[in-house]
């Protein structure tokens, strides 16, 4: 079929958070045009924040995405604390890492079990998956529920938690409430190991791409809430230097802003980047599980992001149980200090990759300017390149199968389109 001219397109992409579409044009086995675009309406968050109190940024920006609200809450809080010069004590920072583990678990398990796994089995959705492998779906739902429960115990609710603030938490949960979660967290780890073993048996499409991986890296821990920005080409910079090394480009074919380095190179953030840049920060037995499942450091097969995500679920359960065992409630649950004018930066590892916040505030704490760079807008250009690679590699498939394979390639990114949208141009063609 490689001699014909074919256009593969999907108008409303399923099993992603938000709405997007893609279009690929193939001539004689070569891709001549590809577009991954977003038709999420803009919501102008950066503009809406202007003039509001610094205290509003975490809650307002959490509404960018209901699947990863903690990423926005923590990034915004850290950026404000940076601007204000407030130091968050270790027990509060640990409680942040604990609730963040809950977000990784619920977001990752939703994707690996309910949204991505069906692709590998040729199934439409997790409902069909439940008919053929009910145990796998039930285990996923149980693990996801524990992640949500962890967020509820600390944050009050799992979608848009209410107990978080600049400086920490309104009220730290009791030690009893947190430690009551430990048996469920241990069970969650066991369920997740079983799921990784099941996923390891999937048939992973054979594709390798060249990637510039970018992630946080911490002195001792697998990165979630803290670290420096590193890349697979040797970059090693502090969080505040993000805008000096990365920017968003405008490309002519889609009028979309897409993340790239200042040299114009696309890059990849998210589980595969984190794993490849931080495999030595995983406990040795978890790294061994990853390798046994077919995921070794250096992996460049985007379809194996499913495995990287599931390995991170195992790690998040392990880490959450460790933090819960060591937990004593910080009193008070937050720090406060004097207000001052300033500029602050914050980056955390959202489930889908690094998420950058920058704010300028006035002497009275009013926000003067806000910039947010979510992971999916950083990945958008690489997603297009993956589509090109996928179509050229698998162009022998018939149209329906190739279309599905392309959808699967986009879902490798668990693209959170709600997040990316307020930065992306809509794909509107005008005469």
């Amino acid at each position, binding site marked *: 079929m490689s001699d014909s001219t074919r256009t593969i397109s999907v108008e409303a992409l399923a099993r992603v*958070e938000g709405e997007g579409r893609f279009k690929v044009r193939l001539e004689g086995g070569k891709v001549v045009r590809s577009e991954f675009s977003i038709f*999420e309406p*803009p919501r102008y968050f950066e*503009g809406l924040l202007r003039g509001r109190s610094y205290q509003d940024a975490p809650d307002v920006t959490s509404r960018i995405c209901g699947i990863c609200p903690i990423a926005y809450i923590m990034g915004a809080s850290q950026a404000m604390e940076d601007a204000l010069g407030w130091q968050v004590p270790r027990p509060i920072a640990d409680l942040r890492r604990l609730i963040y583990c809950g977000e990784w678990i619920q977001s990752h398990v939703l994707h690996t079990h309910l949204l991505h796994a069906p692709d590998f089995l040729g199934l439409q959705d997790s409902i069909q998956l439940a008919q053929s492998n009910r145990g796998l779906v039930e285990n996923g739902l149980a693990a996801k529920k524990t992640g949500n429960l962890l967020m509820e115990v600390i944050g009050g609710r799992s979608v848009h938690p209410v107990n978080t603030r600049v400086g920490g938490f309104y009220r730290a949960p009791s030690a009893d409430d947190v430690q009551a979660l430990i048996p469920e967290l241990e069970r969650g780890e066991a369920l997740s190991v079983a799921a990784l073993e099941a996923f390891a048996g999937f048939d992973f499409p054979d594709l390798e791409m060249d990637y510039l991986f970018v992630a946080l890296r911490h002195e001792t821990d697998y990165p979630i809430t803290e670290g420096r920005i590193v890349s697979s080409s040797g970059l090693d910079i502090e969080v505040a230097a993000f805008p000096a090394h990365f920017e968003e480009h405008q490309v002519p074919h889609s*009028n979309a802003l897409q993340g790239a380095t200042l040299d114009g190179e696309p890059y990849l953030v998210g589980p595969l980047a984190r794993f490849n840049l931080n495999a030595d920060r995983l406990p040795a037995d978890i790294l061994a599980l990853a390798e046994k499942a077919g995921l070794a450091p250096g992996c460049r097969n985007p379809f194996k992001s499913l495995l990287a995500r599931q390995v991170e679920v195992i790690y998040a359960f392990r880490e959450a149980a460790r933090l819960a065992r060591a937990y004593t409630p910080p009193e008070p649950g937050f720090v406060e200090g004097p207000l001052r004018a300033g500029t602050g930066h914050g980056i955390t590892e959202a489930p889908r990759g690094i998420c950058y916040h920058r704010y300028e505030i006035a002497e009275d704490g009013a926000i003067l300017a806000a910039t947010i760079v979510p992971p999916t807008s950083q990945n958008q250009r690489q997603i297009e390149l993956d589509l090109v690679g996928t179509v050229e590699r698998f162009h022998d498939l018939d149209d329906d199968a190739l279309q599905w394979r392309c959808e699967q390639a986009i879902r490798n990114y668990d693209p959170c389109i709600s997040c990316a949208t307020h930065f992306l141009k809509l794909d509107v063609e005008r005469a």
Partner: protein
Amino acid sequence: MKPSGEKPRLAVWKFSSCDGCQLTLLDCEDELLDIAEAVEIAYFLEATRSTRAGPYDVSLVEGSISTPHEVERIREIRRDSALLVTIGACATAGGIQALRNTLDHDALRASVYPSPQFIDALATSTPVADHVAVDFELRGCPIDKRQLLETLAALLKGRKPTIPDYSQCAECKLAGTACVMVAKGVPCLGPVTQGGCGNLCPKVGRGCYGCFGPKEGANTAALAAELAKLGADRRSIRDLFGGFTAGAPAFAEERRRHER
């Protein structure tokens, strides 16, 4: 009437929103597989690539109407749906993005996007009920899982959902939570906000920020006067009413009164 044995068809639609209310359905971990057996999930892009054309028995609609295309799309969905239920603060009040309704849209657009001419959006973000008839509304940013399950169960049985319409203040009394305004002088929208979240903010010593929107007959002016007595300045009162349900008429009006 459906032929006996045929399952009711459920559709879930997204407009301008964060996906959190749809996610609440997927977060019903204990009930999800039963729901999938009780209904046919006919359209739910966040969960399945398989879709079927209408008509639908129940449509759940998340998100506000903020683009010309969305105005058209919600009309089509209304035509295809026997019952249309709006879920969440965006669909029922316009969401946080309704803050744009009182701003200069061109200036806002230019401040966020370098090439604003490519952004095809309306100057306003409005609730679904401003555009089509709505059969039932679920409040919240996000909606409450228990209320969602009650609503689905009721609609499938053909009865009216039982959703409380009392204030957040009443939730504090029912839960035995100390009043954050009286005890600590913390500004709180509890007296004017519909309950239903589970008393989340006051329980952690935080003032309610109104994500379930104004309760019927809310006396926002009296509350604003109390907030001023506690020492809240005009900007903070304006922004407290200018939250996730800023577009709800009672809150929008109180916010307007506190514009500088």
